[in-house]
């Protein structure tokens, strides 16, 4: 068990560093095993700093920066060991337009590299336009949800209704 855990840790850490510097266009990030000499007992510490900053504590990062860093970590795990499905419920909500583009670029790259199927729940038209297909959830009858397949043109109308 111990060797496997260390090996998994090293692969994830490598992917995390790459994905973080891709998303932030620089900066540095790494994972560390802490709180115990035995890897089977230790916790996972995240250290990440956007380019040009000097971050002492991760909690000082902004809402958008934290969302991007967490995304990099989740995707790093996929590259090490792809899960069959990933659902992201409005993770693009705290992001500005430039970061939404970068987030979508990363989703595109993941689609090509991992066998994972991605579901992205979103209100953001930029993210909608980058999907392979769209489903709309509607409540034509109040309180009753229906699922319809929509194309991008319809999606804009649905979002505005």
């Amino acid at each position: 068990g111990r060797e496997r855990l260390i090996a998994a840790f090293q692969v994830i850490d490598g992917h995390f560093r790459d994905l973080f510097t891709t998303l932030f266009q620089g900066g540095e990030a790494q994972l560390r095993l802490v709180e115990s000499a035995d890897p089977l007992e230790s916790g996972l510490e995240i250290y990440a700093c956007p380019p040009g900053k000097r971050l002492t504590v991760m909690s000082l990062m902004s809402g958008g920066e934290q969302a991007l860093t967490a995304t990099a970590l989740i995707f790093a795990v996929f590259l090490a060991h792809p899960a069959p499905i990933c659902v992201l419920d409005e993770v693009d909500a705290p992001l500005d337009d430039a970061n939404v583009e970068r987030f979508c670029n990363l989703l595109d790259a993941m689609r090509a590299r991992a066998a994972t199927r991605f579901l992205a729940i979103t209100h953001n038209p930029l993210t909608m336009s980058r999907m392979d297909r769209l489903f709309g959830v509607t409540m034509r009858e109040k309180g009753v949800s229906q699922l319809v397949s929509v194309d991008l043109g319809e999606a804009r109308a649905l979002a505005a209704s």
Partner: protein
Amino acid sequence: MQINRLRLSGFKSFVDPVDFPIAPGLTGVIGPNGCGKSNLLEALRWVMGATSAKALRGEGMDDVIFAGAAGRPPRTHAEVTIDLDNTNRDGPAAFAAAPLIQVSRRIVRGQGSTFRINGAETRARDVQLLFADASTGANSPALVRQGQISELIAAKPQNRRRILEEAA
């Protein structure tokens, strides 16, 4: 093993049967506030064996059963089924011969849940193990709940270990 489809009936706001195909690549889910998008993610986590009603935003597990709406009476039960494509036979040994594995969970108000795999009743534990072996499950870090993306950063190091364990 791939997840192909999700079918809901009576689950939260999905009172009428709904069939949700999950194809490879990127699928977007859109719609106005309160229409039921996050309920879909909860249906997925529930059928995979979720045990915490609070993590599904309810007080008790019966809160996942359709509670009624303007023109509709409440339901007494709910059911979600997930279709798994097992053509490359990497599912559990017991189902090696089956190209398709269907896992379903049904709850009746006041009586709790029952799980089935390909029609045969089974324990919650067996369903949870089936998904854990496939690197997913009700508490997978890859199923990111609304407003929770930053939780991963704010979590304590011991709580983040699960990420490593999933992948090891």
